C-alpha cells in the first residue's frame, strides 16, 4: 500500500478563493470525481478519452485559479510513480516483445512502455478530478453540506473532529518522544530492540488519550449528539436547481455506465 505523505500540523490542501469552482456545491465536485473514475475504469477505453478528461480538468483548474498548485502537486506525486512505472514496465513487463532501444544486454520494450503510459494517463485523469475538489473545497464546507443534506450529524462529527485533533496529536507525539528518549529509550539498537521500543512510544499516546476521551464522550452526550430532531448549523452552503439537476445527471450517467459495463 502506498504511504500518503505525512504532513505535519493541520495542513489541508485547500486554497482560498472565490471562483465558480469554490462556490460549486461540494457534492457536485465529489460526484464529478466518481463520474471520472467510472468513465475511466468502466466506460469507453482509449487514450483520447483520457486526454480529453485531463485537458478538461486542466481548463477547469485554470478558471478556478488553482492550476499552478495542481500542477505542482501532480509533479510531486506522479514523478516518482512515472519513473518507476516506465522503467519497470519498459524493461520487465511480461508481455514485452518489441524492443525500442537497448543498453547493452538491457532491452526497453514497446508493450511495457505503452502499458505504463496508459496507466499513467488513467491515473492522471482521476487525480486531476480529485484535485479540483480538494483544492477548491474547504473541509468545513463539505461537513456543512453533509449535515444540511440530512445525513446523521455523527458523520459530520467523525469527519470534522479528527481535523481539529490532529495538530494536538502531533504536539503530544513530540512530547512523548522526548519523554521516553529522556528515560534512555534505545532508538538506535538492533532491529529487535527498536521493535520493542514501539511499545513504550505507542502505549502512552493511546492510553493517555483514551482516558481523556472518556471525558470527551461525556461532553458529547451533553451537547445532545444523539438527540432526535433536525440539527441546524451556522455555515450554509449555496445550492441551486441547476446544480441539483447536474447532480442527478451525473448520478444517472454513473449508473448507466456501470450497467453498460456489466452487460457488455
Amino acid at each position, binding site marked *: 500500500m502506498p504511504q500518503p505523505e505525512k504532513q505535519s500540523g493541520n495542513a489541508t490542501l485547500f486554497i482560498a478563493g472565490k471562483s465558480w469552482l469554490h462556490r460549486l456545491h461540494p457534492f457536485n465536485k465529489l460526484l464529478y470525481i466518481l463520474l471520472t473514475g467510472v468513465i475511466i475504469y468502466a466506460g469507453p477505453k482509449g487514450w483520447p478519452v483520457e486526454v480529453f478528461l485531463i485537458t478538461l480538468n486542466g481548463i477547469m483548474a485554470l478558471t478556478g485559479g488553482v492550476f499552478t498548485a495542481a500542477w505542482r502537486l501532480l509533479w510531486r506525486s506522479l514523478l516518482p510513480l512515472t519513473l518507476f512505472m516506465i522503467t519497470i514496465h519498459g524493461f520487465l513487463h511480461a508481455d514485452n516483445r518489441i524492443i525500442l532501444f537497448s543498453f547493452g544486454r538491457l532491452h526497453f520494450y514497446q508493450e511495457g512502455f505503452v502499458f505504463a503510459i496508459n496507466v499513467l494517463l488513467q491515473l492522471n485523469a482521476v487525480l486531476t478530478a480529485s484535485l479540483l475538489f480538494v483544492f477548491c473545497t474547504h473541509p468545513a464546507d463539505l461537513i456543512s453540506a453533509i449535515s444540511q443534506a440530512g445525513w446523521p450529524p455523527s458523520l459530520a462529527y467523525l469527519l470534522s473532529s479528527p481535523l481539529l485533533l490532529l495538530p494536538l496529536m502531533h504536539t*503530544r507525539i513530540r*512530547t*512523548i518522544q*522526548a*519523554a*521516553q*528518549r*529522556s*528515560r*534512555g*529509550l*534505545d*532508538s*538506535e539498537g538492533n532491529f529487535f530492540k527498536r521493535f520493542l521500543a514501539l*511499545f*513504550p*512510544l505507542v*502505549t*502512552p499516546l493511546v*492510553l*493517555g488519550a483514551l*482516558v481523556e476521551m472518556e471525558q470527551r464522550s461525556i461532553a458529547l452526550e451533553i451537547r445532545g449528539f444523539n438527540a432526535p430532531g433536525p440539527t441546524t448549523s451556522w455555515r450554509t452552503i449555496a445550492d441551486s436547481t441547476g446544480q441539483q439537476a447536474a447532480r442527478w445527471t451525473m448520478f444517472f450517467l454513473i449508473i448507466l455506465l456501470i450497467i453498460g459495463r456489466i452487460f457488455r
Partner: protein
Amino acid sequence: MQIRLENIIFRYSAGVPVLNDISLDIKKGERVALIGHNGSGKTTLAKHLNGLLRPAAGTIRIDGRKTDTESVARLSGIVALLFQNPDDMIAKRRVWDEVAFGPKNLAYPEGRIKILVAESLALFELLPLQDCNPYDLGYSERKRVALASIIAMDTPILVLDEPTAGMDPREIVLLTGALEKLREDYKTVIIISHDMDFIAELVPRVICLAGGKKRFDGLVRQAFQDQSLLAVCGLLQPQIVRLSTYFRQTEPALTPVEFLENWQRRAK
C-alpha cells in the same frame, strides 16, 4: 556534577530566539529553581541539558565536558528529566515495571534496579500500589509514579518540570521528603515551577527567565522582594511573602516558620 552554560542561543527555524544568550553555573548538589511565565523558555532550556534540543550557539558543559556531541540516550544516564504530564510517559501495565523502565534502559545490574525501584516507590508511598495498573490510579498518583520513575534512574542531575502540579498537600510533603533525600545524596536538582509558595520554602536560589533572557540569578529572598523583576517575569509574590510585607516585617519571611519567628521577635 557541575553544569555550565555559556551564551546559549536557541531558535525554532528562523524565528525570534526562544533562548537569548543564557549563561549560568550550577554547582554539584545545588538545588535551583527556574521560574518565569509560560513561554519564557524554561522548558526549552531544560531540554538543552539532556540533548533533546541543541543550541544554535553557545556551549553546555557538564563536569567540564562539552555535551553537544553526546546522544540523548547517553545523556539520559546523567540528566533525568521529569515531564509535566505523567501520561506522556507511562507505558507499562504495572507501577513497578514503570519505575524500573528508566534504570533498565540504562542497563543497571538487576540487583541495583531492585533496590532503586524499591527506594523510589517508598519515597512516594507507592509500595502498596506496586502491582497496580498506573492508569487505574488517579492523576496525582500517576504523577507520583512519574516522579519515582525519574528518581529511580539515579542520575547525578535531575530536572523536574512542574513537580507539584496536580498534587495535594500530603503528596507535596512526600515530594519535599524526596528532595531532602536527593540533597543527602548530593544530587543537583533543577525545579521548573509556577508554584511560588513551594519555591519560597524549598529552593534557596532562583533563576528568572523572561522572553528568553536571564533576568535574575540569585537568592530567592531577593527575587521575591524585587517588585519590578516580578512584574517583568509575570510572577506573583508567594502568599507568605505578601503576608509578611503587609505586616511590614523588615526581612520578608519565606516560610510560615520564619514569619512566626519575625512576629515573635517584634513582639518582644
